[in-house]
């Protein structure tokens, strides 16, 4: 029985993180799939969301022996408030990053956003009094905590909360995509000049879509913080996160909501499996399995771009009848 619970908890961990990635993929899908804005700084918005939420909801840090630097915090706000703050912070930063670059070609935006993400990571690692430096933020409270004796219930609750958020987001984005607003976004992506000629202020629409996408990534960060219950800046928010989300959306199909979610579950499934299989791998491969996984992601990126740029589920054809 104990083994069964262990497997279930492991599976729950997979589900909860896959949900976080699915939300990230939905945010990126709104920015790139619908609006054509190529965001290369997903990890940065994710980071801002995660740290904003973590700082907002943690209790005052108890004095830790060993002289940990500690972090800004002690507000003990409830999780929904923390998540809302995370969305505000990430969305606001997204708007700020986008303003100078949205009028320029797509690759300027890519460079500016990846630069922003790296700067955000450097600041997070070094601003110890605010973010806890390389140690990060520990003891983040769960939204509902059954105590340390009930790991399964805790995990199930997180998966439930994440699943609910994902479902609401999916419905919301479906509504948005079919709305006149979403139509303008797709029109901007397909032919910006024609959309401008129709009297739409495409800059404003692009800015709104980018900020909304950033806010969704911030929400993913907030969920990530309460799922892991700790944050560390070096590995969790590396550029590899951004590249993984690209693969997820491209695999699933850009411009298709179900595709983005499917891609997230598939690609994170691969990552999770590589962790699970590490113990069974032969001696020579054991230490390199993570590098091989990243190489596979690279190969996937190239092959998909070359041979199936529309992904598994292609975007719905919307034609006038």
């Amino acid at each position, binding site marked *: 029985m104990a083994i069964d619970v262990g497997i279930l908890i492991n599976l729950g961990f997979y589900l909860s993180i896959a949900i976080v990635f699915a939300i990230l993929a939905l945010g990126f899908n709104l920015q790139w799939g619908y609006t054509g804005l*190529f965001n290369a700084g997903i990890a940065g918005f994710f980071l801002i969301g995660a740290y904003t939420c973590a700082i907002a909801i943690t209790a005052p840090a108890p004095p830790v022996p060993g002289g940990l630097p500690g972090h800004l915090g002690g507000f003990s706000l409830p999780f929904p408030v923390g998540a809302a703050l995370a969305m505000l912070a990430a969305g606001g930063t997204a708007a700020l990053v986008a*303003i*100078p*670059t949205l*009028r*320029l*070609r*797509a*690759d*300027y935006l*890519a*460079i*500016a956003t*990846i*630069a*922003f993400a*790296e*700067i955000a990571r*450097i*600041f997070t*690692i*070094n*601003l*110890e*009094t605010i973010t806890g430096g390389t140690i990060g933020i520990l003891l983040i409270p769960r939204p509902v905590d059954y105590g340390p004796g009930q790991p399964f219930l805790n995990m199930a609750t997180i998966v439930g909360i994440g699943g609910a958020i994902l479902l609401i987001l999916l419905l919301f984005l479906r509504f948005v995509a079919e709305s006149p607003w979403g139509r303008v976004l797709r029109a901007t992506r397909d032919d910006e000049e024609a959309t401008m000629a129709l009297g739409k202020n495409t800059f404003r629409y692009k800015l709104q879509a980018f900020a909304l996408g950033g806010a969704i990534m911030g929400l993913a960060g907030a969920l990530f913080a309460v799922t892991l219950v700790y944050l560390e800046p070096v590995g969790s928010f590396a*550029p*590899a996160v951004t*590249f993984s989300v*690209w693969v997820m959306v*491209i695999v699933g199909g850009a411009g298709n909501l179900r595709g983005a979610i499917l891609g997230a579950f598939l690609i994170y499934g691969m990552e999770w499996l590589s962790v699970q299989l590490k113990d069974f791998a032969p001696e020579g491969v054991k*230490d*390199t399995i993570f*590098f*091989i996984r*990243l*190489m596979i*992601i*690279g*190969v*996937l*990126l*190239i092959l998909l*771009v*070359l041979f199936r*740029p529309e992904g598994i589920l292609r975007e719905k054809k919307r034609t006038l009848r």
Partner: protein
Amino acid sequence: MAVASESESAGKTRSWQSRWGALRLTRRFRRQLLRGLIVIAIFFALNAALASAYGVGILQYTIAGLVVGSIVIVAAIGLSLIYGIRGFANFAYGDLMTLGAYVAVIVNVLGGLSLILGAIAAFIVLGAVGILLEFLIFRRLEGRGPVAPLVASVGVGLIIQNGIRAVATTRQWNYDVTPIQEIPIVPGLGIHPIRGIATLGIGFLFMLSVHILLKYTNLGKAMRATADNLELAKATGIDTRKVRYAAWAVSCAFASTAGVLLGLGTVVSPSMGFDVILLIFAAVIVGGIGSPYGAMLGGLVVGLSQEMSIPLLLWLGRPDVIGLQHATAYKVAIPFILMIGVLLLRPWGIAGRPPAFAPRVFFVERLSRALTRRPAVADQSEGDG
């Protein structure tokens, strides 16, 4: 590409009467020369002022900035060539630099030969890698906009970086060169013969060779034409396919040399190239995308600004000022602040010329117009937006 237009009519009546009129510099070049001299004068005055105020030792940051600048220049020229001719941001560039550095490690450390041979081997191998990349991947992505090749290049970068980690493990390597003492210029200020002088020299050599390549060879002319207007270049009978292969070879070969120089200055490690790729992008954008001459200027500006910000950051880190922790870690953010400024004010770069039909109403222009909103009469004949 920013190319000085040679045949600018220089005042038809007067200059032809004088015997030396034909040798008069064009007005555009004179203007650029004047501007350049002013900037250089300000730079020297600033350094002289710093040296007199804080002692000669502070000039070590200027020297470090010039050294970093010349590494960035070599890399940025290569990146800019591909950017101009293939029209996308090559995110694998940093990892190509790493690959070049590792090829030199194989020759120099494992093979026991001199580093110069290693650098030459890396130059050749990486040139071949560039041709291979274009042949296998990027030639199939022509006409798919800037994002598809960008994504593919990230894939290439991931494969190279993690392939190196899987094969050569994550350990760090040092090149096997004879240790030489720093040469003192004046007491308290020295320069390292290899890390300093050689790097500066190689940077200058590459700048010169690119200038000769672009200005005085048929290939360079074809490259400039292809970067300027692909369709027009095709129509005039330039074999743009060949130009693209040549550009990839030159670009990746430059990446290898930049990688070797970078490894010489610090250590060779799997993530060394990826860690500086954003710096190189900042240089390319500050100088003006797609222009190798802009890349030279941008590389210099980026390198100098990053290294010369260290004393300022150290001052900020003093407990009686702000007490910023790990103050020097923020030096890498300075080039990006410059980059954002350039994107706001001059998105075509400090060296580039504004495109004729660019959307001129940028954020700042709009802001200044909103602040000085006057009746429509005052706003005459500017004709933009």
